[in-house]
């Protein structure tokens, strides 16, 4: 890998970070998200920032990037305390000193063409046009995204979009690079893509880096320091990576960090003695949009059976139709050809074709958990969200309360029963979205990427819930990229072929 002086235009020197008694409180909250943080990062240090879900890691990065609050220290976003500086300045007055890459690939694409998107940050910094395009090409080259400058950004994969965001930050020549779970929402091949791009960037620029990631093993070789935030919003540990993992491994694992060698084991339970078929798909071709069949399934229709007490994992590369198959089995998309049929045991008097079942009939028969939890939230509190299904079924109020309380405890959401689902952390949202579907005890549970990008705690909680459901005699269908999930739960695999180029 090249190091140092490959730039045709001057690179920014790496910058240091100082925090003294720094803290932040979100508007409308009583507790400080972060408080009494004392931290000194030297220029060029590469720090892995770890901590449980909701410990304020993202808040810390946003503050360093200068996108938290206004210049006067308090704003409608929240209040700050203490001192935080990047290169000796308040980060809010030094926008551009730090480059930030966020978690969601979709909401970081700003322009419709690759070159324009990378140029956007440079334009805002007032970089002259000639130098700007040199920077754009260099940044794209460094992240390995060698596409025409007018390539449409909407045609990029998740991993490519993340590398684009990295290039966009990089072209601004930040002395500090901030990465907020850059691989949480990309598939396994994309994780390596992004990791390698970050490695190349740091080797070349020597920038200071703060990286938030759950999956430590992918990033361990890159980091020369680990900083851990505790659930209470203070610093819990700080030091050389292997030493911190050795001393604090157990605590970190308990906080949801994927510590190598400390992966949680899921206790397999005995399932039901019999595995009667509940759903059958015959000669099925799929269409995501009505009338437009997916090419793969149009050429080779699918046959599959979903049985009680078993897990069917739908695997395959992006675009292979995993999600479409899951939603079709879930009675939410009509098959293009062929049919999905519920056996009488499952249909229980309803139309045997899931797509023909009434919305309410689906509740106890086939439950679907969506990839994006926000899509399925319908109420304004966590408690109502869990109670919605049982209420629709007209259960007795006492029975509803019992189910909801049990789920709140199982999901670790008891203290958040009154919170708005949209304000939860990513892991909490995922758990709630699974719980809300379990509340009506469907015979078949369909999940779209249930464990994607989750910290180890949420991962284990979700997998255990699914395992419990399976052993109780329900059938589970999961579209998944996560090989750990399929292995942990002993799933049958339906590998879907990719689209032939």
């Amino acid at each position, binding site marked *: 890998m090249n190091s140092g002086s490959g730039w045709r235009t001057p690179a920014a020197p790496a910058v240091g970070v100082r925090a003294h008694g720094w803290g932040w409180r979100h508007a409308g909250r009583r507790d400080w998200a972060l408080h009494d943080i004392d931290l000194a990062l030297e220029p060029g240090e590469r720090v892995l920032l770890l901590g449980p879900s909701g410990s304020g890691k993202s808040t810390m990065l946003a503050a360093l990037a200068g996108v938290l609050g206004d210049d006067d220290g308090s704003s409608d976003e929240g209040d700050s305390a203490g001192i935080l500086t990047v290169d000796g300045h308040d980060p809010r007055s030094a926008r551009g000193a730090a480059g930030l890459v966020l978690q969601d690939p979709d909401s*970081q694409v*700003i322009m419709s063409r690759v070159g324009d998107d990378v140029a956007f940050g440079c334009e805002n910094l007032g970089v002259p046009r000639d130098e700007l395009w040199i920077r754009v090409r260099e940044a794209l080259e460094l992240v390995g995204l060698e596409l*025409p400058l007018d*390539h449409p950004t909407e045609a990029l994969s998740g991993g490519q979009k993340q590398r684009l965001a990295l290039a*966009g930050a990089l072209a601004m020549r930040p002395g500090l690079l901030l990465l907020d779970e850059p691989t949480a929402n990309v598939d396994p091949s994309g994780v390596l893509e992004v990791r390698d791009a970050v490695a190349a960037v740091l080797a070349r620029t020597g920038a200071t880096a703060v990286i938030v990631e759950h999956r430590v093993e992918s990033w361990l070789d890159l980091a020369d320091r680990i900083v851990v935030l505790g659930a209470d919003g203070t610093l819990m540990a700080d030091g050389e990576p292997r030493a911190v993992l050795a001393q604090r491994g157990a605590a970190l694992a308990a906080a949801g960090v994927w510590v190598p060698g400390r992966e949680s084991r899921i206790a397999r339970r005995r399932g039901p003695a019999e595995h009667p078929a509940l759903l059958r798909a015959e000669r099925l071709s799929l269409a995501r949009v009505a009338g437009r069949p997916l090419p793969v399934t149009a050429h080779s229709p699918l046959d599959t059976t979903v049985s009680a007490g078993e897990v069917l994992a739908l695997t395959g590369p992006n675009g292979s139709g995993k999600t479409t198959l899951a*939603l079709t089995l879930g009675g939410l998309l009509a098959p293009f050809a062929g049919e999905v049929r519920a056996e009488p045991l499952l249909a229980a008097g309803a139309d045997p074709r899931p797509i023909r079942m009434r919305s309410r009939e689906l509740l106890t028969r086939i439950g*679907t958990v969506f990839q994006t939890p*926000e899509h399925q939230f*319908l109420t304004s509190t966590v408690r109502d969200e869990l109670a919605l299904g049982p209420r629709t079924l007209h259960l007795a109020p006492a029975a509803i309360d019992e189910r909801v309380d049990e789920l709140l405890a199982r999901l670790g959401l008891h203290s958040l029963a009154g919170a708005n689902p949209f304000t939860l952390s990513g892991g909490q949202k995922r758990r709630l979205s699974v719980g809300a579907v379990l509340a009506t005890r469907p015979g078949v549970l369909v999940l779209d990427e249930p464990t994607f990008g989750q910290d180890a705690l949420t991962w284990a909680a979700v997998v255990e819930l699914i395992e419990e459901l399976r052993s109780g005699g329900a059938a589970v269908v999961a579209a998944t990229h996560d090989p750990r999930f399929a292995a942990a739960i002993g799933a049958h695999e339906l590998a879907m072929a990719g689209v032939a180029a």
Partner: protein
Amino acid sequence: MTAAATALPSRSGVAAINPVAKIAAALVIALTLAFSVDTVSAGLALALEAVLLPFAGLRWGAFWHRTAPVWFAAPLAGIAVLLYGRPSGRLYLDWWFVEVTDGSLHLAIATMLRVLAIALPAVALFATVDATELADGLAQIVRLPSRFVLGALAAFRLLGLMREDWRALAMARRARGAADRGRLQRFGGLVFALFVLSIRRGSALATAMEARGFGGSTPRSWARRSRFGMREVLLILVAALIAAAAVTTAVVTGQWVIGGR
């Protein structure tokens, strides 16, 4: 990657002209023709445009596809005027409020021609406008505030995501047992949910933009220079000539009537 992957229409001839000039050209014709309702000015403008439209940089398939609504709306406007326009001259049909007369027939044809003469060049010119180039032009040539223009441009890109969100929201409602209610109620709920989600997406996008220095105090540079040269002036000039020829002929032949008859 092939050129097809760039999703841009071919950039040559008129298509490559600055969008600001395209807007100006379309406005020149529209504002001029709006002053009179006669067949001569509209007819002549339309005839001149018909000669020029093949050079607008659109393939025929695309041309008919894009202008389909115009071909539908123009006769409709004509028929409305024919049936309900102010009566004058010989009466052809009289039924309730409907009176078809010499005057309304003439006015109907004039209206139809006018809609075509104004809308066809506008649609044909806009069909080759790229949103990014338009934003560049509005900010650099027209000097609209860059915050406003770039914000709108970014929001425009979110529209595609909204379509996906809508489909997912509708399915999720069905999965959650909430889709058996009346169609109207369901629609209302969906619109609200989409609204909430869009605000969230918007604020996430705003954060990403801020993180890249957007909204800072540094004067902005522009990666793409929006050019306004001879080609642009020429396009506007052609539009002005069409408008002038149409007005002159109508005035000379005594047909030009401000505000209709």
